[in-house]
């Protein structure tokens, strides 16, 4: 039982009369790379928002590492170890690249307001540690030369990368990526696939990938779930999904 890191148990969410996601069961194991796909309007982003606490399920429950997280605020869910990126990049545009990552370390700070004012040894020590760790992360993702740039002045691909770095800085056990390949060309997609694989292996975390792009999803996911009209119509390995008649029907119509 406990091998599941994230567990969605019969989750349903309704907006007025519309059932966006219906009776969804879905699990992710530790250190697993799972894809969630589906045609437009299938409810992928809604699932994403359910897990991250932007919406609360009307029925059912969501567990992360044995704790129920279905009624928590987004920031509390992040503190349990789920980090995310956004479909349309949401960096802190007027903060430097360095500070974008630094902010995300805040969950693991021991010092707060009073330490910032007193500025004792412990505070200096911790600030230095944070700064070192930020630089290390930036180095791993080849962003260290941009550390003093405004995030908004970064090229598009770097912004995507920075968003992932920022999410990793919260030290998650699971990373949720919301359409990371949107707006990328073939080369960039290839780089992205390598990057996701690298992140998963290097940081030993689970990754949930919500994505439109078949090439990316089929290329790296160990397991794929398919949503259509808020219902899970298939789940399995990329090969199983590729040949599943229900999936083909959902995507191509009859």
């Amino acid at each position, binding site marked *: 039982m406990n091998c599941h890191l994230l567990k969605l148990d019969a989750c349903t969410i309704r907006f007025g009369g519309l059932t966006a996601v219906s009776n969804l069961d879905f699990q992710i194991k530790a250190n697993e790379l799972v894809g969630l796909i589906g045609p437009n309007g299938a409810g992928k982003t809604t699932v994403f928002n359910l897990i991250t606490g932007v919406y609360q399920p009307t029925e059912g429950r969501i567990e992360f590492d044995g704790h129920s997280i279905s009624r928590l605020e987004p*920031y509390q869910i992040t503190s349990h170890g789920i980090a995310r990126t956004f479909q349309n990049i949401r960096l802190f545009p007027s903060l430097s690249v360095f500070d974008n990552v630094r902010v995300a370390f805040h969950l693991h700070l021991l010092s707060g307001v009073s330490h910032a004012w007193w500025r004792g040894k412990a505070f200096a020590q911790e600030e230095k540690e944070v700064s070192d760790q930020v630089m290390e992360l930036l180095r791993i993702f080849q962003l260290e030369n941009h550390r003093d740039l405004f995030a908004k002045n970064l090229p598009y691909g770097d912004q995507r990368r920075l968003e992932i770095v920022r999410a990793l800085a919260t030290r998650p056990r699971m990373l949720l990526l919301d359409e990371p390949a949107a707006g990328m060309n073939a080369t960039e997609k290839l780089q992205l696939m390598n990057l996701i694989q690298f992140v998963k292996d290097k940081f030993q975390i689970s990754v949930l990938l919500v994505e439109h792009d078949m090439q990316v999803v089929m290329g790296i996911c160990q397991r794929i779930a398919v949503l259509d009209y808020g219902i899970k119509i298939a789940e399995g390995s990329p090969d199983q999904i590729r040949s599943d008649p229900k999936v083909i029907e959902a995507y191509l119509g009859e």
Partner: protein
Amino acid sequence: MQHRPKTFLIGALACALGTSFLAPYLNPYYLDVILTVGINIVLAVSLNLVNGYTGQFSLGHAGFMAIGAYASAAFTLFAAPAIFPNANGWVTQAVFFLALLLGGGIAAAAGIVVGAPSLRLKGDYLAIVTLGFGEIIRVLLRNVDSLGGALGLNGIPFYTNLFWVAVWAILTIYVVLALVHSTFGRGFLAVRDDEVAAEAMGINTTRYKIIAFVVSAFFAGIAGGLYGHLKSSIDPKGFDFMRSIEIVVMVILGGMANTRGVILAAILLTLLPEVLRPVAEYRMVIYSLLLIILMLTRPQGLFSFRSNRPSVRTP
């Protein structure tokens, strides 16, 4: 400031003590202007924490200032003579210090009361609610007879001097900068830039906003106490929303989230009406025209020069 903050603080406080010995040699008019400048620095720098760094638009700073002014004046007028009869010398200074802390403390408490319900609101709505809050404070003060009603409080002792104003101005600057220049404090800027993303990074945005509101209200209260003990009389009219707007204008002209600029703007905007004294009739017209022209020509503020670099450098 960034590198050796505590050394800076102690040095600055020593300077404050030093310069306060110069006060008796100053022309009283100049001294009054200098003290007003200092009080406005406290107000503008503290408001900048909310409006500039945290990106919330408060138009109610004068309300917190009024609370501080009334609380501290009431303390020195009514409570202090009973607790410390025949106070003089150091004791009066201590009484004044206590009065200021009391004013700041009550204003900070009011900051929580206002902050908690209204922080779900954004932008214009928050502005108008904080403005409304300031007006409610004024109406309440007008109705409390023991605080002088519409006439206000008179005969407040002249305790405010160069030393206290300098100390509090330095403390305000230190507290705001030290807060913002920390990993914890980057959270304020994150809230300003994108609340949704900040939440996703585990930042409790409500908590940050309330901290900003409370710290800023505390110093507004202190400034109110200094103001009351400088002018010797206060009334509800002196804390109307024009007063709040004056402070907001200092923050915006200084270039939001730019403490140095805000200090300069506070100095400039306090001196401007004094300089325009010869054309007294037209000075407010000139002031408002300048405001419009500045907004049209330099919307980023008077004192923001760097454009391609983050406004606060990384350590």
